């Protein structure tokens, strides 16, 4: 199982790692109980600072996607992380929708795009 990282991506590396792991959890490729490689291994493989990876893992832990167990490393938690209120949950969706509206997409096109993305996510998850 692989994450793809781009050096020309506007997001910082730790954010790419966090988003990539969340994406794999959403698709069902990373399932509950699976262990992530150690911070040292990831930092060595990518050639980045240990802190960069540690920040990514800490963010995932704070959001409830992974549990860090002493000696066992970072373990994927269930797909239902810490409960968050609805407003907070929809905030990224609102930001993404705003972006699409500002780019001139019609309501129908946006709904179609959301359906397509969701189908892709569920399809990949179902094939696992």
């Amino acid at each position, binding site marked *: 199982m692989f994450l793809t990282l781009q050096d020309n991506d506007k997001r910082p590396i730790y954010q790419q790692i966090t988003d990539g792991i969340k994406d794999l959890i959403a698709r069902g490729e990373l399932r509950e109980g699976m262990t992530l490689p150690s911070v040292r291994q990831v930092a*060595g493989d990518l050639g980045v600072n240990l802190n960069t990876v540690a920040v990514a893992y800490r963010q995932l832990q704070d959001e409830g996607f992974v549990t860090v167990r002493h000696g066992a490393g970072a373990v994927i938690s269930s797909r239902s992380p810490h409960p968050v209120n609805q407003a907070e949950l929809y905030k990224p969706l609102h930001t993404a929708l705003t972006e699409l509206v500002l780019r001139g997409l019609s309501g129908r096109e946006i709904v179609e795009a959301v359906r397509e993305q969701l189908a892709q996510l569920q399809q990949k998850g179902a094939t696992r």
Partner: protein
Amino acid sequence: MSAPSEVGIYIFTICLLVTVLTYALVKYLWNQPLQNGPGYFLGIEVPAGFYEGAGRRWMTGYHATLAVFYLVWAVALGAIVLTRRWDMTPLWAGGFAILLVPAMLGFEAWARHKLGADPPVRPVALALESRRLSDYISWPAEALAVALVGFSWWLLLRHGGKHFDWLTPLTLSWGALGLIPGKMAMVRVSWPLPAERAEEHYRFQDAARRYWIRVSGIFFEWFMVVVLLSGALIHALSPMRPAPMWRWLALASCFAVWGYGMIAMFRGQQQLKAMGGDLRPPGSWKTPFGRSSCFGRGRAFQIWFAIWFGGILAFIVYPLCKARF
């Protein structure tokens, strides 16, 4: 049945090494720079037409380095045969291996420094599989090696005596036990993965990692453990005048481990070639994120190698200096 004579063992060792190392030179070493095709020199990406221009000089330099090594090795062998100093055979055999490996690594580092643009791989893939030490290293086997070394020392300390040469068992123990942290460092070694054909690159890197851990384990750990244990047993049993069969058995054990190592090495090379024949060699790129070590080898590996290899060299050089001054 008479016990094997010391001279006989040395002559047999010489014949075996000459055959195997000549085979290695012809089959693998001579054309090593071209193992990844004409687009690469020792795994370093080179421009098209390189071998019509500057590449010729590099090939000549590589062949000259190899030829000098083999020539010095042959001259040293000639000196041993002419002077009948058969006891110098271990130094001749070990010295070749100990000097050739760092010399070739040094040549590769120099070539990489001079030729290697090492373009960063874009985009880069990150494998989410944990590399646990126990997936690569058998801890019961390591415990057995430590126990055998301990047992050998127990025998030697009981039967060593005042005039015993402690340096040889010390060197063998350093080489064998020192490899355990080396194996742990090898597990950590990795190269950045290109997103394209990431799975194949990952499998190839993993196979290469396992190959190096296995081959170095046979040659530098188990071979040294068996030599140490055989020597300690024979030394401990010598007052009882053991049957010649025991000496033959000890000798056969040492050669069996060495032979097994050679087979593992040649077969492993073939398997790696089959796996990664059409893949870009791992060292021909770097990570796009800046910090990337030469060869992809981790810093822990480099520190370990410097200490371990430095120790072996010190054990070899020390008696020579002591005898001279």
